[in-house]
C-alpha cells in the first residue's frame, strides 16, 4: 500500500509538471497580454513599464523556471488582473466547484447505476429503450444549450428554480440552487455510467458463477444484487475515474451559464484577461484534484475486486 502511494505520488508530480509546461507555453502563445497592460488608455511607455514590472520581457523559459521555483515553495504569485494573491482567489472559489462536483458525482453514480440495472433487467423493453434514448440525448446535446433551455423553462417560465447562485435561508433553497447545475453537469458523466452498468450487468449475468449462485438455491434478489452487481460494478468504478476530469472540464461551461462563482468560471475570466499566474494556479489545483480523485477511485477499485489486492 505504502509503495503504491509513493509510486503514485511520483507519477502525479510528473503529470502536474507536464500539465503546467503545456499550459504555460500555450498561454504565452496566445496574442495580447495581461488586461492591465492592454488598457485602451495606456501609453506605450506605460505598457513597457508594466511588462517590465511583471517580468514579461524575460524569455518564456526563464519565466516558467521562476514560476516553477516559486510554485514549489507554495507561492503561486499575484493575480495579474486583480493584484490579489492567486491562492486567495482560488481558496475563495474552490468550495463552490468542489460542492458542485461532489454532488454531481454522487448523483450520477447512484442514479447511473440504478438506471443501468433497470435497463439491463428490462433488456429490449420500452424501459430499456427509454433509458438508452435518454442517455444518447444527454451525451449528444451540448450542455451550454441544455443549460440555457433549462433556465428558460424552469427559471423564466415556471419560476421553480433559481437561474444562478443565490444564498437562501432554508436547505430547500440551497437544494433548488444546485438542481439545475448538477443535472447539466451530470450529462457529462451519467449517460456513460448508465451504459457501462447496463452492458457490464448483461455480461455478468451470463457468467458461470451466477449460474452457481442460482444452483445453490439462492433468492433471485441475492443472485442479482449480491453476486452479479458486485462484479458488474468493477468496470463501472474504473470508468468513473475517467469521467471525473471530463466532468471538471464541464464546470467551465456550467459555471459560466449559471453565474456560479467557482473555479471553472475563474479560469475563463483569467484566460480572457491573460492573467498568466491565475490560469497556472487554477490549472495546478484542478490537476491535483483529478489526480486525487483517480487515486480514491483506484483504492475503491482494489477494495471491490480482490484480484487487485496488491495495489491497496
Amino acid at each position: 500500500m505504502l509503495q503504491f502511494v509513493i509510486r503514485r505520488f511520483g507519477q502525479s508530480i510528473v503529470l502536474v509538471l507536464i500539465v503546467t509546461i503545456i499550459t504555460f507555453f500555450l498561454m504565452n502563445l496566445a496574442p495580447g497580454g495581461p488586461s492591465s497592460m492592454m488598457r485602451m488608455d495606456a501609453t506605450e511607455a506605460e505598457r513597457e513599464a508594466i511588462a517590465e514590472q511583471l517580468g514579461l520581457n524575460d524569455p518564456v523559459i526563464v519565466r516558467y523556471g521562476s514560476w516553477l521555483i516559486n510554485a514549489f515553495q507554495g507561492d503561486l504569485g499575484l493575480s495579474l488582473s486583480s493584484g490579489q494573491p492567486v491562492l486567495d482567489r482560488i481558496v475563495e472559489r474552490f468550495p463552490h466547484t468542489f460542492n458542485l462536483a461532489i454532488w454531481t458525482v454522487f448523483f450520477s453514480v447512484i442514479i447511473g447505476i440504478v438506471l443501468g440495472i433497470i435497463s439491463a433487467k428490462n433488456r429490449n423493453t420500452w424501459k430499456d429503450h427509454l433509458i438508452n434514448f435518454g442517455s444518447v440525448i444527454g451525451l449528444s446535446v451540448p450542455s451550454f444549450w441544455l443549460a440555457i433551455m433549462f433556465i428558460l423553462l424552469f427559471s423564466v417560465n415556471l419560476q421553480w428554480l433559481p437561474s444562478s447562485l443565490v444564498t437562501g435561508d432554508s436547505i430547500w433553497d440551497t437544494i433548488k440552487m444546485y438542481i439545475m447545475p448538477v443535472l447539466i453537469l451530470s450529462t457529462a458523466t451519467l449517460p456513460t455510467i448508465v451504459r457501462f452498468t447496463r452492458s457490464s450487468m448483461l455480461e455478468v449475468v451470463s457468467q458461470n458463477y451466477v449460474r452457481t449462485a442460482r444452483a445453490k438455491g439462492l433468492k433471485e434478489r441475492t443472485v442479482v444484487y449480491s453476486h452479479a452487481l458486485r462484479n458488474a460494478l468493477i468496470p463501472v468504478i474504473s470508468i468513473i475515474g475517467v469521467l471525473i476530469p471530463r466532468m471538471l472540464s464541464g464546470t467551465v461551461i456550467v459555471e459560466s451559464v449559471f453565474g456560479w462563482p467557482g473555479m471553472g468560471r475563474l479560469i475563463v475570466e483569467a484566460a480572457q484577461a491573460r492573467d498568466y499566474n491565475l490560469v497556472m494556479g487554477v490549472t495546478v489545483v484542478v490537476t491535483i484534484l483529478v489526480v486525487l480523485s483517480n487515486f480514491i477511485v483506484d483504492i475503491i477499485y482494489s477494495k471491490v475486486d480482490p484480484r487487485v489486492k496488491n495495489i491497496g
Partner: protein
Amino acid sequence: MKELLQVKNLSVEFQSDAGKIRAIDDVSFNVKPGETVCIVGESGSGKSVTSLSVMRLLEYENGSIAGGEVLFENEDLVTKSQEEMRKIRGNDISIIFQEPMTALNPVFTIGRQLIEGIQQHQDVSKKEAWDRACELLRLVGLNDVPVRMKQYPHELSGGMRQRVMIAIALAGNPKLLIADEPTTALDVTIETQILNLLNELKEKINMSIILITHDMGVAAEVADKIVVMYAGKIVEQGTVYQIFDEPTHPYTKGLLQSIPSDTDKKDRLYSIKGTIPSLNDLPQGCRFHPRCEFATDKCLQSEPPLLQENDREVACWNFKEVLKEKVKL
C-alpha cells in the same frame, strides 16, 4: 430398486433468431439411489442441457422445457414453480460445473460462498454455518481449512477450486449430485483425484451421481450405467459392462475406439469422421447416418426408434451388424 430420478420423454427448446431449436428431444433415463449414471457424448449432443433442465436452470438462459417429466422422488419438477425449485436446488439436488475457474464468484471469499448456501437451506447460526463449511472443506480433502475459508477463488488452484465447488454442492446433503464435466478443465492427475473423491463421497453419503462427460475413459472409472447422447437424442443406454463389452450403436463404438490406449501405439488415434450436425440443420433419417460406417438406405429415410433389448436400449437399425464387429480396447 425404487428410482430416485426418472426423466421421461424430456424435450427442451431454445429460442434463437432462427426460431425455436430443439436441443434435446424425447430423452428418458432413470437414476437409482446410490447409482452413478454417466451421460456421454460430444460437445453439442445435449448433455449439459439435460442436466440444467433437471435443475430447471435453463429458464434463466433462454431455454424452456417443451415436454416430458422429471420425476424426483416421484414429484414432477417440471411443474414446480421457481420458488419451489429454489428449495430443492443446492439442497436435494446439487450441481458442479465444468469450469472451476469461473464457477466461483471472484469477489467473495470461499467461506462466504459456502456459508450462504448452508444458511439458505438450514436454520443455523453464522458460527454453526462456519463450522459446517470447514467440515465440508475437510471432507473434500482440503487442508489449512481456516485459511482457505478466508481466501478468494483466484488464490486457489484449479483442482482446489473444483474441490470447493464440490463442497458447496454437498452443503445440503444432496440425494443427487450432477457433475457437468467436472474434470475437463483439469489436468490428468487432478482429474483422477477428483473422480476418486466423487467415488468416495458417493459411498460416504450414499448419494446418486449424474456425471456428464465426453470422455469414455472417465465414464469407465465411475459409471454404473451409461447413457450415450448424440445430437439431442439418446442413442444407447446400458450398464457400464454392456456398453464397454458390447456396444450396439456405431456412435458408442466410435467413442470407445477414440480412447487412447497404451498398448497400441503404432496407429493413429481413431476419430469419428465428420462433426456433430447443427441442431437447426439435422439430417433426414437417423441423425448419425452421415458419419456412420454401417449406414444403409433405411437409415437415410427413417429415424430409428429407441429399441429395448435385454435391459438396454439402442437406437440403430443395424445394431446386430454393429454387435458382430468387436471393438479392440
